[in-house]
């Protein structure tokens, strides 16, 4: 399939503009959709990203990273390609990349979601000929419950733990998910939530970007004999099972992820409670978004791209899979 964007060993590449999108090896010119580690790598010559993501991007890539922020929809000319960024609704500052040249209009979605999320600018469908979509949750069993209900469940679980005199440790990804939960909790409480060290800088960056959240304090700032009973602690999944957890004796544990939709995953991970909240689109979100772009051709990447491709072909699209070396469970 001759086109504007192709896969190279370094990542997605646009020859017309001589730049890469979310490259996983150092390149001279990179457009980065968002700050998650499998998309944003350091070491590039120049990086373009959305202004909304500037804080998190510097937090992840270092203050000295050669970043040139772009406003939403601000035109940028690279070679003979016209490039612009459009909101993807995945996390703070996450962008879709629109590329236009004589080959047509291509949009690389990066990761995106359609559910309401006050912590970032919502996804906007961008009309295009070819849409490169993620397919992390591309199976019809993935259908997200109302995020407000899920956060209410988290709050209820925390209250229950307080009634039982237990600490409640909630595991979730440090960038995006944690801030979304902390924002959602405002509807229920003004009580302070405690953060694992990996969370603190990112929560600070989100606050600086104007995202409202419940008050937070670092776990490490509390005294050694702090009584954790009845408190909510938010930590990344990597903290589970480490010695850091020992201080929360008798804690009940929860995990916030789209993967928690499936019972096998809930059981395998061994958390007491699974909460289904994802920063990716569910099955309907994917199909609706693809339809909304008006594209004729779809290239699917990550997760269940085979299912999505077959479905799209049966429904009149041209579709193919786009390989990446990051196959496996992406952050959900």
């Amino acid at each position: 399939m001759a086109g504007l964007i192709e896969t190279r060993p370094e990542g997605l590449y646009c020859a017309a503009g001589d730049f890469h999108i979310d490259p996983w090896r150092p390149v001279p010119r990179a457009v980065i959709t968002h700050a998650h580690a499998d998309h944003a790598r350091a070491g590039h010559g120049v990086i373009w990203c959305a202004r909304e993501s500037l804080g998190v991007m510097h937090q992840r890539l270092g203050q000295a990273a050669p970043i040139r922020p772009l406003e939403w929809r601000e035109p940028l000319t690279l070679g003979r390609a016209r490039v612009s960024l459009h909101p993807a609704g995945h996390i703070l500052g996450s962008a879709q990349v629109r590329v236009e040249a004589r080959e047509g209009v291509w949009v690389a979605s990066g990761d995106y979601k359609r559910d309401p999320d006050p912590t970032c600018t919502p996804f906007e469908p961008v009309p295009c000929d070819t849409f490169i979509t993620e397919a992390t949750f591309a199976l019809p069993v993935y259908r997200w419950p109302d995020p407000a209900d899920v956060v209410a469940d988290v709050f209820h679980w925390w209250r229950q733990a307080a009634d039982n005199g237990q600490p409640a440790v909630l595991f979730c990804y440090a960038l995006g998910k944690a801030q979304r939960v902390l924002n959602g909790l405002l509807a229920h409480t003004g009580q302070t939530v405690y953060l694992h060290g990996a969370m603190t800088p990112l929560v600070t960056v989100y606050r600086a970007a104007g995202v409202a959240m419940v008050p937070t304090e670092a776990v490490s700032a509390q005294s050694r004999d702090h009584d954790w009973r009845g408190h909510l602690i938010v930590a990344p999944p990597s903290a589970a099972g480490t010695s850091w957890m020992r201080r929360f004796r008798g804690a009940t544990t929860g995990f916030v992820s789209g993967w928690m939709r499936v019972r096998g995953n809930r059981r395998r991970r061994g958390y007491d409670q699974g909460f289904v909240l994802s920063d990716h689109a569910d099955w309907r979100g994917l199909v609706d978004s693809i339809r909304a772009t008006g594209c004729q051709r779809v290239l699917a990447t990550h997760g269940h791209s085979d299912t999505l491709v077959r479905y799209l072909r049966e429904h009149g699209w041209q579709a193919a899979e786009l390989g990446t070396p990051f196959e496996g469970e992406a952050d959900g």
Partner: protein
Amino acid sequence: MRRFAELYEQLDATRATGRKLALMVDYFRDSDDEAAAWALYFLTGRRLKRLLSPTRLKAWAADAAGVADWMLVSSHAHVGDLAETIALLFDDGSAGDPELVSRDLGAWVAELRALAQADEAVIGAQLAAWWRGLPLRECFLLTKLLTGGLRVGVSTGLATRALAQALAQDENLIAQRLMGDWQPDAALITRLRAPPDAGTVASQPYPFCLAAPMDDAPADLGSPSDFLIEWKWDGIRAQLIRREGQVFLWSRGEELLAGRFPEIEAAAMALPDGTVLDGEVVCWRDGIRPFAELQRRINKQKPGRRLLDEAPVRYLAYDLLELGGNDIRDQSTRQRRQQLDGVIAASTAAITISPLVSAEDWATLARLRTEARSRGVEGLMLKHADAPYTRGRRRGIWWKWKVDPLTVDAVLVYAQAGHGRRSNLYTDYTLAVWDGDALVPVAKAYSGLTDKELTQMDRWIRQHTIERFGPVRSVQPLQVFEIAFEGIQQSKRHKAGVALRFPRIHRWRQDKPAAEADHLQALHALLDAVTPS
């Protein structure tokens, strides 16, 4: 149904035994007798007969949910459970139809049984209405009932304890009254509430005593003379009851084996009334025959003359639980064994005694154990001479000292996602050995790796896939695993010409390149070595 669906979810969500017990006790206390009986039915691992085949359920579900058949298949492969897949497809977050949700479990079972007899079109329409009308949790439970696959992650022992606590009865008494066949109705709970001296039904078996595996040196157990030692037979465990002029043969799975082994049932008529034996059904012709021959008999409800001649069975008795109508389980193993000798002396060839193996010291026994495979047995059984006959698996009463498994190094060639806890992880492996420069599959193996290793392998499999065939991936032949297995038999159905018994992954041989995995000749040599002449 709501209350049981809630219990199911709560039990599923916790691994703490104490919490599971408390949840069940609460349920039994809250429920009326019929609901308690149905819950007990499922909690003790009993199942409804499968009412509708998975193939038909998939077709109806795909149709009603408006998804293509292949999408339902892909979703099922990912989720790992058909009932859950269907429930997820229909879930729209709504609370469902209150009438359907509040209907009793017993009433649902009756509805489902009646529906299974209806016309195709009627079934399809009714299922669609139920799937749409039930919330996620209840829809999952209903579909589990339809597939006959409802399993709860609690042991029978724990469910029994919970019920005993809720009824304030002795746990052993409840366990015994729950043996054998019973119907899940209010009358069951009434019978369980009855005082201890209320008596039993003629057919009712005793709970089986189970052996604990012995992994350590037997010398730690004391002297061999403290034990009664027998061969561990490779047959099916069974309890033989002779009461009120009748004979009942029960499998360890509490299934009545009536009619399957007529020679044993006929011989049992000669036992004195009020006798209960524990022992093993084996295939026997001038000595024990391989399990495969017994398999032919197990599958046959009413064996014909020819099969009876070709694969004769006998009952090897090794314990006496009831004599003259008296429960003697509290007596010591030695005392019971002495009385067993007296009872069996009067019987025919189809019921004989499992002989004792005598040896002065553990070294001699260890040597005898190594002969197990050539003798057609699985190893040795050590039964403490002074212990009573207890219920379930209690360490220190019975030990099984099995022969070391056979092993072979094989190469991973296909992987498939697992089920339940391992769904959407590639954990089910097909392993192959070399035949010249080709790899020929010899076993499918599941367990044996840690969760961490499984996750690591899952990633590796995804990154080294050659081709996908639906839920199966072929992978580059690079990973070597040592597989352990209990036996090896000739097989025309397998490409390799051999079938392995109970294969499982023993070790991940990360140190070994694929080229150094075993060859088919090695398996054929093993086959020759273990086949009794």
